[in-house]
């Protein structure tokens, strides 16, 4: 039976995130969190492979204890196991330290065939973690895929590129990053929810459980640092309202766009 590992993180909803203009730090109060949208698609892709081929699905995430309900939610959706890698030592990690830590945790899991990540996280949006994990594990990668098949024991993935796509085939183990929006994540299963609430125990691994030193993880293990946060003006606009009857609205729109219409 194939073992699929899904790397999943929890992110604040982008629209709700604001910068405190005085302290230049992110205001976290009152901001809702969610499973990183692309990771939900990665999880769904894993669960579809499980439905079809009977794979085992393990979800791992490196983050603070408050991620626990989201890790459990992944199990309620259909994952077989979930592990939260959580330790103060991991705080402040850049993509390099994050990938190193996730790779060490995946090594500890033992045998695996497929690692699925999201294409990118909605907060940092780097997309660099998946290829870095693959390098640390010394396995192949296929990034930005929107379709995965298992054919005669091999992994076949459709990789979407600018202006086209390629279909690649590879023997496991291989890491894939899954495109946001490529499938419709399922709802949690109510029967599983009862089992998860009553019996499922989330495994929490601290740094002691991994073959890593304090210097290799978190801020100390990072090779890029954030100097400052700035608010990006996504556009100061006139915000003029156009109103009236539909015909009047259409006339006003026409007056604005007419100079730009090429005959």
């Amino acid at each position, binding site marked *: 039976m194939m073992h699929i590992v899904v790397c999943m993180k929890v992110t604040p909803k*982008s*629209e709700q*995130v604001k*910068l405190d203009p005085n302290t230049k730090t*992110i205001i976290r109060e009152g901001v809702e969190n969610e499973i990183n949208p692309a990771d939900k698609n990665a999880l769904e892709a894993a669960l579809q492979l499980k439905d079809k081929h009977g794979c085992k699905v393990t979800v791992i995430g490196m983050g603070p204890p408050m991620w626990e309900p989201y890790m459990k939610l992944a199990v309620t959706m259909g994952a077989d196991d979930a592990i939260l890698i959580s330790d103060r030592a991991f705080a402040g990690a*850049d*993509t*390099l330290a994050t*990938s190193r830590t996730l790779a060490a945790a995946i090594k500890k899991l033992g045998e695996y065939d497929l690692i699925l990540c999201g*294409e*990118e996280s*909605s907060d*940092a*949006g*780097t997309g*660099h973690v*998946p*290829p*870095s*994990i*693959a*390098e640390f594990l010394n396995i*192949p*990668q*296929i*990034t*930005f895929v929107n379709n995965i098949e298992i054919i005669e024991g091999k992994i076949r993935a459709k990789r*979407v*590129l600018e*202006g*086209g*796509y*390629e*279909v690649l*085939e*590879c*023997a496991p183990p*291989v890491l894939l990053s899954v495109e946001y929006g490529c499938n419709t994540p399922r709802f949690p299963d109510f029967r599983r929810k009862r089992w998860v609430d009553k019996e499922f125990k989330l495994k929490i691994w601290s740094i002691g459980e991994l073959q890593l030193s304090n210097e290799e993880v978190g801020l100390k293990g990072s*090779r*890029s*640092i*954030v*100097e400052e*946060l*700035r608010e*990006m003006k*996504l*556009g100061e606009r*006139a*915000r*003029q309202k*156009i109103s009236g009857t*539909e015909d009047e*609205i259409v006339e006003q*729109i*026409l007056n*604005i*766009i007419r100079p*730009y*219409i090429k005959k």
Partner: protein
Amino acid sequence: MSQEYRGVWVFLERRGDEVIEPSLEVLGKARELADRYGDNVAGVLMGAKNLEIQAETAIKYGADVVYIVEDPLLEDYSTIPYSEALSRLVKKYKPNIMLYPATRNGRDLAGRISAKLGLGLSANTVWLDIVGDGVLLAGVPGFGGGIMAVTKCLTKPQMSTVRPGAFSKPRLNPMREGRIEKVDVGKLPDPPTKTIEKVFFTVEDISKAEAIVIAGIGVRENIEAVKKLSEKMNWAFGATRPLSDEGLVPRDIFVGATGKVVKPKIALIVGASGAAHFISGVAGAEKIISINIDPEAPIHSYSDYSVVGDAYKIIPKLLQRLEAERR
């Protein structure tokens, strides 16, 4: 000045015989950064053979040197041989800065190199600056583009992937001269992946459009009318990402943080809510006019003119009026 870690390098991604535009944009920025602290610009070009013409082009766009690595395994982009070849080059020449276009291949490659060489890497930058003798500051957009983190790498080369469209393509200078150097990096590993199929479409590049109509999920049932409107006015046609995820429009016309960045003189946006991941792709428009039925939709505050109204009623009327004016 120490001999170690000099040069601003750019990964020159190819599509067939051409260096892709995002790489040229990065090259232009690299030139500006290098001039600021008196350094050279080098391009890295990999492929099977005959790369001299592209190398010449890169020189005319601002490179002082182009390093060429030729190997049959480098014909098309593939993670393992490309990352192996590039990391050997980087170890040999020790550049101060290594920039990649933040295309899918560029990100695939940069993330791999970062782990291979233990280097810091800033992602998808939209802003770059030099302080002191070649210290790179990189602006990384977060949360869909609402916030920018100014980051610094602690290792050299200081690496960054650069958002396509963030910088403009430099002007070609036919008189510029430079040096081409072929480098032998030794035997490369075979790719572990086999290519079954590879397809490229010719698509209109909406990123250069002077005027654009953009459809959101709110007009899902009537995309054709919106498209027709764009055709009537001779404007480009774009969409939000969910429409392309649902397969209702081609992938290469969605606008936003993970899609195209457009900088038109005017954008008419219909049935889009104005999510941060979308807005960051149109924020450079000179004028935005939007139609959305929900008065609370954030798109209204990102617009110069906005209509709270039903696009299904307004679009057909607009089409009628435009047709009437034609006659």
